[in-house]
C-alpha cells in the first residue's frame, strides 16, 4: 500500500502531462509569435499546441467604420491565418520565426469578410454569454477558432468571376481552424451555407448570362464553367514554393507549362499537384487535403491530360507576386435553402524543408512509409555539410530528364544529417548546394517500416578571397562577382534559356543570370561587402573576378582559376570613373525582410546599397515602416550610407505609394498604423503625410505608375496625353475595379514624386511604339503603324509610358519630381540602386555627414534630381541647373553626360513642352563616357526642358538583364480561351512591349522651367483640375447588374 502510494506520488510528480491545445484571444504581445512577417497583435487569436502556434486575425471590423482595420493584414479582410511557426524553446514573448504572410480560404476569388471571429462554444457557434463551454482545448480535445462572415472580393477586378460563379450575396461563409494536441497541422474546415430562400447553383450563372452582363467573348455561351474553391496561401518572400512531380521548386513556370496542355473548361487551367509545400530558413509550410468525393481536380480529371491527378490532388491556377491559389473542392451543383457544403484542408508547418512537411502529410494520410536518411560530408575535409539539399526523385536517370518527378527535398542540419519519410518505392537522390558541384544521382529503395540510410560525400567548394580598396585606399563597400562562361547545348535558344542547362529552378538552384546578349557570360556568384573584403565558398571553375562600386566607379576584372578545396586571394584597387560634386545617389524604393515578398535580411540590404555606391537608402517595405539606421550603424556603414525610414503603402489594386521620411511607432507591429483597404487615393496620401516626420515636407511618391494592378495610373486609366482619368471600354471596363474609391473624381494629384524608371522596367518609360518592320499579324484594329505609338480603339496609347504621362503633367503645371528607383526585393538579378536618383544637395555637401536627411528632402522638393541607372546627366542654362526656372525667350541649354566605360551613352535627347523633341543627338563613340552638347531653345511661351540620355550597350555584369518574363498574360489567356474565339479581342495581340531584355544605360533629368516673359511661369496647357470629372454612369458596375438578377427558385 505504501509502495503503491509512493509510486503514485512519484508518477504524479515526475510524469509527463498529456499535451494540450489551446485557443485564446491574445492579451499581450508577449503571447504573439514574432518573426519576420509576424503581425499578430493584441485582440487576435492564438491557436497553439505542444508543436505549433498560429495566429488568426480578428475581424478588423469596428462599430465606427473609421476605426476598422481592414487591410491590416496583407489582404483586405481579417479572420485569416496570418502567423505560423513551430513551438520553439526560446520562441515565447514574440521571438518566434513566423515567415507566413497569410493563408485564407478562397471561393474562386471570393474571400470571407468576417463578422465574427471567436473560440466557439459546444454548438460550434460564437458564445453569447460568459461561462459557456468553449472549444478552447482545455478538455484535452481540439482547440478551435471560428471565423464566420459573408463574401468579399479579394480583388475588385475579378468581381465578374466571383459574382458569376459564386454569387456570395446569398451565402454565409465560415471557417473553423482546428488544432489537436501533438499535431503539426491545423485542420481547416470551410463551410458554404446557402442563406437565401432559393436554390443556389454552382456556378451561379450560365455562360450566356455572364455574356449578357458584358463579358462579350465569342464562344463564351458554349462553355461549361465550374466553381473551384480552396485556399489562397501567401507564403512570404522567404519561402520557396514547391510541388511534387514536374514542378519541384519551379512552380510558376510549371503552371505556365500546364496552361499549354490544359484541356479547357469546365476545369480551370493550372498545375495538378499532390500537395503544396515550401522551403525556408527554420520553418516551412504545406497544404494538403484528404481524399474526398468533392475533390475539384478529380471531378474534372479529363480536363487535365498528361498531369498526375492523385486522390489528394490540388489545382494551382497561378502564383504571382507571392500569392498563390490552391483550389481543392468542387461544391455540389446546387445548395438548397439552408443547405451547406464543407471542405477540409490541412495546413502543415515544417522545420524548414519540404521533407519535414511531407513527413506530416504522410502521417495525416496514414499511408505506409519507410524512412530515408543519412549524412553528408565534405569529400576533402570530412566535415559535415550543413544546409545541403537532398533531392529525392523518381525516374531512371537525371532529375531533369523527361519523366523524372521530384518527390521531396530534405535539408541537412549542422551535423550534415537528414531524415525523412517516403512511401515505399524505388527512388534516386542528388545532393546540391550552390557552392558545390551537384552529386551524381544515386538509387535507393524505401521499404515500409524500414530505415534506409546513406553516407554521401560532396566535392569541396573553392574559396575566393578578395580585398578591395577605393581610389583613396579605403576599404570601401564594394560588390564582388564571379563571372563564368558557359557552353549552351543545342536547342537552348538564342539567347539561350539558362534554365535549361545552367541551373535548374525545378531543383531549387539559385538563378545564375546570363548576359542575355548572345554571349556566354553568366554570374556564378555575387557578394555585396561592407568593406570590400570577402571570403566566400564557390563552385570551382575559371572565372572573371569583377569588382564594382556603382556607376561612379569603373569595374575591375581579373581572371581567376578556383580549384576544389583551394583558395585564391586577390587585392583590387577601384578606380573612380567620374566625380559627382554636390550630387548624392539615393534609392527611394527598397524592400527587405519586413516586406512579405522579400526574404532579404536588413543587414544584407544596407550592405548591398553601400556596395552599389548608394549614399541614401530609403526603406519602403510593403505596409511596414522600417528604419535602416540601427542596422546601418551595427554594420559599420555609418560613414557610407544614410538611412531614411519610409513605407510602400501597398493596396491590392489601387497602386503603390512610397512615403518618407516617416516616424516609426515602436508600439505597432508594422511600425505605424494606417488603413489602405477601400480608401480613396486622397485618404491614402493624407494618411501618409500624417505618418511623416514633418507633414509639410514629407514626400509621397507614386510607384511604377504604369504597371497593371500595381500602378496608380494604370488602375485609374490615366490618359498619357492629358494626365487625367478616362473611362475604359470593352473588356477593360468589365475588369475595372468597381469600388467608389475608384471613381474618377477621386483621383488625386496630391503626390510629390513619380517613379520614371523602376528597376529594369524600361518598357514602362515611354509609350510603346510598333516595331519596324512589324511582326507577323493579324492585329486587332486599329492597325499598328511601324515606328508609331500603338493605340487602342479610342486612339489612346495602348501601352502608355510613364514619361509621356509625366510630360503631360508638367504641361499642366503639376510638378512631381521624376525619380529613379530599383524596387529591389532581393540581390542578384534584382540589384539595388538600378535605377537610382541623383540628388543635388549642395556644393561640398556630398560627403556623408555633410548632408542631412533634410537636404535630401529639399533636393527632391526642388526637383534637383536625375533619374539614372548609371550615367550622370546634368543640364544647365547659364548658372541655373535642373529644377530651376530661367527667364528668357532664347536659352542655351548645356547638356553634360558622364558615364563609366561599362555604361557608355550613345544618344542624347532634349524634350520640351508637349513632349516635343528639341533635338536628338548621336554621341560619338569616343565620347560615350563624357559628352557635352549645347542646344538653343526658343520657346514662344513658358516651357520646360528635360534631357534624356540612352545607351545601347549591355551593362552586364554590374546590372543584370531581365531574362525571365513575369507571368505572361498571353499564356493565361490562351489557356482560358480554349473553346473561345479571342482573335478579334485586343488582349490577344502579340504586339506588345518586350518584357525580356538586356539592361542598357538610361538617364533623364528633371526639368528646367523657362519663363519666357519673366512674369512667372505659367503652365502651357490648362492646369489639372483639383477634382477630376465624374466617371460616366455608363461604366459597367457588375455588382449593380447582379443585384437585378432574379433569385433562382428552389
Amino acid at each position, binding site marked *: 500500500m505504501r509502495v503503491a502510494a509512493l509510486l503514485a506520488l512519484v508518477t504524479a510528480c515526475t510524469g509527463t502531462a498529456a499535451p494540450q491545445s489551446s485557443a485564446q484571444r491574445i492579451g499581450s504581445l508577449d503571447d504573439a509569435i514574432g518573426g519576420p512577417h509576424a503581425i499578430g497583435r493584441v485582440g487576435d487569436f492564438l491557436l497553439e499546441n505542444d508543436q505549433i502556434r498560429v495566429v488568426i486575425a480578428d475581424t478588423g471590423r469596428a462599430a465606427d467604420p473609421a476605426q476598422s482595420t481592414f487591410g491590416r493584414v496583407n489582404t483586405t479582410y481579417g479572420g485569416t491565418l496570418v502567423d505560423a511557426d*513551430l513551438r520553439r*524553446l526560446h520562441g515565447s514573448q514574440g521571438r518566434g520565426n513566423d515567415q507566413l504572410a497569410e493563408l485564407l480560404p478562397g471561393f474562386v476569388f471570393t474571400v470571407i469578410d468576417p463578422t465574427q471571429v471567436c473560440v466557439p462554444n459546444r454548438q460550434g457557434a460564437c458564445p453569447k454569454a460568459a461561462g459557456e463551454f468553449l472549444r478552447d482545448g482545455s478538455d484535452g480535445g481540439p482547440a478551435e477558432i471560428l471565423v464566420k462572415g459573408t463574401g468579399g472580393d479579394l480583388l475588385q477586378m475579378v468581381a465578374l468571376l466571383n459574382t458569376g460563379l459564386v454569387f456570395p450575396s446569398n451565402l454565409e461563409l465560415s471557417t473553423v481552424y482546428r488544432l489537436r494536441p501533438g499535431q503539426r497541422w491545423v485542420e481547416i474546415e470551410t463551410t458554404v451555407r446557402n442563406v437565401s430562400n432559393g436554390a443556389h447553383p454552382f456556378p451561379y450563372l450560365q455562360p450566356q448570362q455572364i455574356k449578357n452582363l458584358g463579358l462579350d467573348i465569342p464562344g463564351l455561351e458554349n462553355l461549361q464553367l465550374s466553381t473551384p474553391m480552396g485556399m489562397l496561401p501567401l507564403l512570404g518572400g522567404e519561402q520557396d514554393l514547391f510541388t511534387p512531380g514536374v514542378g519541384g521548386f519551379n512552380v510558376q513556370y510549371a503552371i505556365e507549362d500546364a496552361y499549354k496542355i490544359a484541356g479547357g473548361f469546365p476545369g480551370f487551367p493550372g498545375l495538378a499537384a499532390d500537395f503544396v509545400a515550401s522551403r525556408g530558413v527554420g520553418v516551412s509550410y504545406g497544404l494538403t487535403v484528404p481524399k474526398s468525393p468533392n475533390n475539384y481536380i478529380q471531378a474534372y480529371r479529363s480536363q487535365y491530360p498528361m498531369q498526375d491527378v492523385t486522390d489528394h490532388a490540388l489545382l494551382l491556377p497561378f502564383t504571382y507576386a507571392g500569392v498563390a491559389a490552391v483550389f481543392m473542392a468542387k461544391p455540389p451543383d446546387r445548395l438548397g435553402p439552408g443547405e451547406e457544403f464543407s471542405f477540409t484542408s490541412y495546413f502543415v508547418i515544417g*522545420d524548414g524543408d519540404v521533407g*519535414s512537411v511531407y513527413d506530416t502529410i504522410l502521417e495525416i494520410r496514414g499511408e505506409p512509409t519507410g*524512412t*530515408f*536518411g*543519412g*549524412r553528408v*560530408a565534405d*569529400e*576533402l*575535409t*570530412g*566535415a*559535415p555539410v550543413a544546409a545541403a539539399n537532398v533531392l529525392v526523385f523518381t525516374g531512371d536517370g537525371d532529375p531533369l530528364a523527361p519523366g523524372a518527378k521530384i518527390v521531396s527535398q530534405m535539408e541537412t*542540419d*549542422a*551535423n550534415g*544529417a*537528414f*531524415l525523412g519519410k517516403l512511401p515505399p518505392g524505388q527512388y534516386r537522390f542528388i545532393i546540391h548546394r550552390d557552392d558545390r558541384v551537384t552529386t551524381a544521382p544515386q538509387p535507393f529503395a524505401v521499404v515500409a517500416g524500414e*530505415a*534506409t*540510410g*546513406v*553516407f554521401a*560525400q560532396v566535392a569541396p567548394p573553392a*574559396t575566393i*578571397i578578395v580585398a578591395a580598396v577605393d581610389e583613396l585606399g579605403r576599404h570601401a563597400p564594394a560588390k564582388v562577382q564571379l563571372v563564368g562562361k558557359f557552353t549552351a547545348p543545342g536547342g537552348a535558344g538564342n539567347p539561350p534559356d539558362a534554365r535549361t542547362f545552367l541551373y535548374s529552378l525545378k531543383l531549387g538552384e539559385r538563378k545564375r543570370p546570363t548576359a542575355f546578349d548572345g554571349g556566354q557570360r553568366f554570374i556564378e556568384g555575387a557578394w555585396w561587402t561592407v568593406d570590400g573584403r570577402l*571570403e566566400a565558398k564557390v563552385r570551382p571553375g575559371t572565372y572573371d573576378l569583377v569588382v564594382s562600386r556603382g556607376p561612379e566607379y569603373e569595374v575591375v576584372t581579373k581572371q581567376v582559376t578556383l*580549384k576544389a*578545396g*583551394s*583558395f585564391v*586571394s586577390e587585392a583590387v584597387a577601384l578606380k573612380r570613373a567620374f566625380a559627382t560634386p554636390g550630387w548624392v545617389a539615393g534609392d527611394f524604393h527598397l524592400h527587405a525582410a519586413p516586406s512579405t515578398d522579400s526574404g532579404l535580411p536588413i543587414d544584407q540590404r544596407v550592405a548591398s546599397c553601400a556596395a552599389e555606391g548608394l549614399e541614401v537608402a530609403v526603406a519602403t517595405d510593403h505596409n511596414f515602416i522600417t528604419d535602416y539606421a540601427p542596422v546601418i550603424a551595427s554594420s559599420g556603414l555609418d560613414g557610407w550610407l544614410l538611412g531614411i525610414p519610409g513605407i510602400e503603402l501597398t493596396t491590392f489594386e489601387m497602386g503603390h505609394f512610397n512615403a518618407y521620411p516617416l516616424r516609426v511607432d515602436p508600439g505597432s507591429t508594422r511600425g505605424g498604423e494606417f488603413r489602405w483597404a477601400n480608401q480613396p487615393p486622397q485618404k491614402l496620401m493624407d494618411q501618409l503625410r500624417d505618418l511623416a516626420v514633418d507633414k509639410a515636407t514629407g514626400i509621397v511618391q507614386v510607384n511604377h505608375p504604369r504597371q497593371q494592378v500595381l500602378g496608380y495610373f494604370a488602375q485609374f486609366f490615366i490618359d498619357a496625353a492629358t494626365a487625367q482619368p478616362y473611362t475604359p471600354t470593352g473588356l477593360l471596363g468589365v475588369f475595372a475595379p468597381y469600388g467608389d474609391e475608384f471613381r474618377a473624381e477621386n483621383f488625386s494629384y496630391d503626390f510629390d514624386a513619380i517613379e520614371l524608371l523602376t528597376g529594369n522596367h524600361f518598357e514602362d518609360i515611354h509609350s510603346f511604339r510598333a516595331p519596324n518592320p512589324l511582326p507577323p499579324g493579324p492585329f486587332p484594329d486599329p492597325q499598328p503603324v511601324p515606328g508609331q505609338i500603338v493605340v487602342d480603339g479610342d486612339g489612346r496609347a495602348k501601352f502608355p509610358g510613364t514619361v509621356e504621362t509625366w510630360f503631360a503633367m508638367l504641361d499642366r503645371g503639376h510638378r512631381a519630381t521624376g525619380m529613379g528607383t530599383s524596387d529591389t526585393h532581393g540581390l542578384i538579378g534584382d540589384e539595388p540602386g538600378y535605377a537610382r536618383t541623383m540628388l543635388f544637395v549642395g556644393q561640398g555637401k556630398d560627403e556623408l555627414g555633410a548632408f542631412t536627411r533634410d537636404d535630401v528632402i529639399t533636393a527632391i522638393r526642388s526637383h534637383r534630381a536625375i533619374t539614372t541607372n548609371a550615367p550622370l546627366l546634368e543640364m544647365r542654362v547659364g548658372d541655373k541647373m535642373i529644377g530651376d526656372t530661367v527667364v528668357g525667350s532664347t536659352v542655351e541649354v548645356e547638356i553634360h553626360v558622364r558615364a563609366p566605360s561599362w555604361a557608355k551613352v550613345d544618344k542624347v535627347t532634349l524634350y520640351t513642352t508637349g513632349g516635343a523633341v528639341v533635338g536628338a543627338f548621336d554621341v560619338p563613340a569616343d565620347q560615350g563616357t563624357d559628352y557635352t552638347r549645347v542646344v538653343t531653345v526658343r520657346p514662344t511661351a513658358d516651357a520646360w526642358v528635360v534631357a534624356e540620355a540612352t545607351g545601347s550597350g549591355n551593362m552586364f555584369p554590374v546590372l543584370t538583364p531581365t531574362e525571365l518574363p513575369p507571368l505572361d498574360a498571353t499564356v493565361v489567356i490562351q489557356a482560358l480561351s480554349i473553346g473561345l474565339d479571342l482573335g478579334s479581342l485586343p488582349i490577344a495581340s502579340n504586339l506588345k512591349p518586350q518584357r525580356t531584355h538586356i539592361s542598357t544605360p538610361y538617364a533623364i533629368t528633371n526639368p528646367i522651367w523657362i519663363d519666357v516673359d519673366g512674369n512667372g511661369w505659367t503652365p502651357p496647357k490648362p492646369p489639372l483640375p483639383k477634382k477630376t470629372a465624374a466617371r460616366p454612369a455608363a461604366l459597367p458596375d457588375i455588382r449593380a447588374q447582379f443585384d437585378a438578377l432574379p433569385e433562382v427558385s428552389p
Partner: protein
Amino acid sequence: MKLRLRCGVIAATLVTMGAAARADDEDKVDATDAAPEPAAPPVVRPAAPAPEKFTWEPWGYLRLQYIAVQNDPNVEFIGRDDGFELLNVRVGVRGTLAGRATYMIAFDGAVDERDRVNVPDGKLRVGLRDAFTDVALSKTMVVRAGLFRTSTDTEPLLEIHRLFVDRGLESRGMRATEGFETRGLTAGRSLGAALRVEPGREAGSTIGFEVAIQNGADELASNNNNDKPAISAALLFRTHDGDGLVPNGGGKLHADLQIAGRFNPRTAGDLPFRQDENDLQAIVNANIGTGRFVLGAGAVFQRTTFPSVGGPDSDAFGAHAQAMVSIGTAERPFSIGYRFGILDPSSLVTTDRVMEHTAAAVVGVPRLRMRFLLQGTHVIEQVGRELSNDRVQLAAELTL
C-alpha cells in the same frame, strides 16, 4: 611522523591514481596538453586515524606554446595562424573531506572555443574541467561522482614527465589550423559516477578496475543529451619491482596494461531534428619502462551506428606508439623521444587517414618548476587530401 605519512600517502596517491588522476588534468577540448605534474586527490583510507575533517591544497599549471605550421598552398585555414597559444591555464583545489572522501575541483582558462569546423578563429574561455569526489568504500575501492574522465584514454597510465607537447593523435584529433579538423576518438570528461579500484602501489602485480556510468554528452554540457547514459568498463594491470613507480626514476621493470570498453548512445542535432548515434569503443594501452627507457602505445577502435537516420555504420581507428629516453640527471632532466600516430576517422571515407611522426626533446628546470618542450611533427595525409602541414612546437610549462 604523521606529516611524513600524509606526504607519503599523497605522493603515493599522485602516482598510483595513475591514468585517471593525470587524465583528469587533460583537456579534451583542445586536447594538446600534457600533464606536467600529478594532480590527483589523495586516497584516504577508511581506517586512517583521526583525519582532519577538511583539508585543501591549491594546484595548477600553465602551458604556453609557440606553434609554426607550414602554410598549405591550397587550403587557406591551415598554417596561417602561427604564434603563441595558451594550451592550459589550469587552477584547482583538491583535498579531503571527513577522512572518507577526497575531492578535486579545477578550472581551465584556456578552453579553445570555435564556432565552426575548420575555422582559424578560436576564442579562449574559462571552463570547469574537474569537479568530483571520491568516497572510499573499502581499503581500495572508491565511488567517484561528479565531472570526471574515465579510464578509457589511450595515453600511458603512468608517467611523471610526459615527453610531448600534445597528446596522441587518436586522442586529441586534428586541431583546426594544423590540418583538416577532426575530433579525437577517446572520451572526454562527463558527469557521472564510477566504481573504482586502483591497482596496488606495492611491488608485484596488481589489478584494478573501473566501471562508470556517465552522461556521455559534450564535455561542457550541463546535462545529458538523451535519456541514455554512457557506460564504460576498464581493467587495469600493473606490475613493478618495488623500486618505485617512476619508470625513468632509476628503477627496474615497470609495466602497465589497460583494456577498456565504452558504449555511448548519443543524441545529436537541434530540435526538432534530433538523431541518435551510438559509439561503441574498445581501448587498449600499454606502457613499459625500465631504467631510462619507456615504451608506450595505445589504440582505440570505435564503431558508430546511426539508428535514427539509418545509413552504414562507421568504423574509426586510432593509435600511437612512442619511445622515450631520459638522458639528463635529476637536477638537469633532459629527455628525447619519438612518437608515431595514426588516425582513421571513418571507414566510409577512403581518404581521411592521417599519420604523424613526431620527434621531441624536453628540458626540465626543477628549481623553477618549469619544463621546456620542443617537438617537430611530420604529418602525412592520405592520397586525395594531401596537405603541407608539418609543424614545430615550442612549449613552456610552469607548475604552480
